[in-house]
């Protein structure tokens, strides 16, 4: 039985909860998914998901409530899996450009916020993701770009010459929103890290 928690401070939380439940059904994985707002909610989790939303808002409350510290500790001690999409990708990065965000700072990558521009530059397209046979339908909303990765952080998705997905150990960062397309294949990559 796996237990996944979706950080529910702000953003498209219910979309992730539904997508994870659906992916579990499709893939035949036994487990549950809960929403996380407080430190006590993360006890016994195998995986944490950080949704899309505003990274400034989410980090502010994660830091204040002690969630940032607690999740960093759980990763260090138990190697829990963590996946971040869009804002979640920003929160996972050690270095952030384009705004004051100090999140989990776990992944060896530098992320540029709103790198494609404002909402009118938001777009849908298909991207190739390492580990998936067919291109993945990706939704980019005021999305970040991973400008560079170093050491054990590895590129897993690219759009032309731009990095839009990276993986390090049991951490997965994506600058797009799998929770909006309902394609379960990305969640399989996440479950494989548990």
């Amino acid at each position, binding site marked *: 039985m796996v237990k996944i928690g979706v950080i529910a401070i702000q953003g*498209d939380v219910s979309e992730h909860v539904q997508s994870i439940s659906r992916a579990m059904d499709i893939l035949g994985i036994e487990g549950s998914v809960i929403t996380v707002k407080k430190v006590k909610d993360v006890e016994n989790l195998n995986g944490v998901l950080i949704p*899309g939303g505003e990274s400034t808002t989410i980090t502010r409350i994660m830091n204040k409530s002690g969630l940032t510290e607690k999740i960093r500790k759980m990763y260090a001690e138990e190697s829990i899996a963590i996946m971040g999409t869009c804002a979640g990708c920003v929160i996972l990065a050690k270095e952030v450009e384009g705004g004051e965000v100090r999140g989990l700072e776990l992944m060896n990558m530098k992320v540029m916020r709103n790198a494609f521009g404002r909402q009118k530059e938001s777009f849908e*397209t298909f991207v190739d993701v390492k580990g998936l046979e067919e291109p993945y339908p990706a939704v980019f909303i005021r999305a970040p770009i991973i400008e560079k990765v170093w050491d054990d952080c590895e590129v897993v998705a690219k759009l032309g010459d731009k990095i839009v997905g990276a993986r390090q150990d049991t951490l997965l960062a994506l600058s797009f929103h799998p929770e909006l397309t309902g394609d379960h294949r990305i969640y399989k990559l996440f479950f494989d890290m548990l």
Partner: protein
Amino acid sequence: MGKKIELEELRHGTELLKRGFAKMQKGGVIMDVTNAEQARIAEDAGAVAVMALEKVPADIRASGGVARMADPKKITEIMDAVSIPVMAKCRIGHFVEAQALEALGVDMIDESEVLTPADPFYHIDKRKFKVPFVCGCRNLGEAVRRIWEGAAMIRTKGEAGTGNVIEAVRHMRMVTGSIKHLAEMDDEELYILSEEYTQSYAKSAEAILGREIDSNTPVYGDYLYDDIKEEIFGILKEIRKLQRLPVVNFAAGGIATPADAALMMQLGSDGVFVGSGIFKSSDPEKRAKAIVEAVTHFDEPEVIAEVSKDLGEAMPGLDIKSLEVKLQERGW
């Protein structure tokens, strides 16, 4: 991997992107600001977006006259000051103000009753735009019509600029109550309701044409009465099934305290707009932070109690009965 980005492969301005943008705002607070300094305070406090305005609704109410889209220079200053999304308001039906705001690059347009309406017959055809729109509603009928017109997000209207939450509560209860009631309706009853909801387009067309219309009369742009009715029927079936609106639904109009914000969340809002409530209070910074926390922890009374301590004076409120102009009555 390594495939080059083909520009034509990138699809912009789709329904998924518009509604998706609104979904990223969920669980957040969108704050009215009138300058770059206020925008930075809002961002630091944890606002998910700011609404760029010349005046907050309380001042619009006090000054009277015609309220229009804000000066684009002011909006640009605010866009340059913060990294979070910036929204701006246009008048109901004023599609040229909306075009200008889209050209400016705002992230979302609020077709708002807080400004003076520009068209006595029609709201903007929002599907013609790539930028997403949010629109106000007092009840399910208004919400459904705005969604049919292409709104990517709905907010209940409340009564802006009053610091009085009663109208926000009224409108949220009317929307959620009506949605619950849909569950008890069969297709035939739902079809009758879609006919009722389509009447407002028929009335506008009749007023313009000076005669009665039939089912094949264009009543909104090129859209025929019957086609609108069928599509509204489709939206109502989706709402009945989801038991919520198919787009994000925020509360607005009169929210002044952390407890007000949490009240709207417990009543089913996806987030809140705070207009005059922050920058008309004695300590905007502290109040803004408190409202942001109250929205995240809306169902934890101990948090609401804690963040409500020592916030200074809230904005002075207005009794709805004393109002000469009710902004909520704009739009239909």
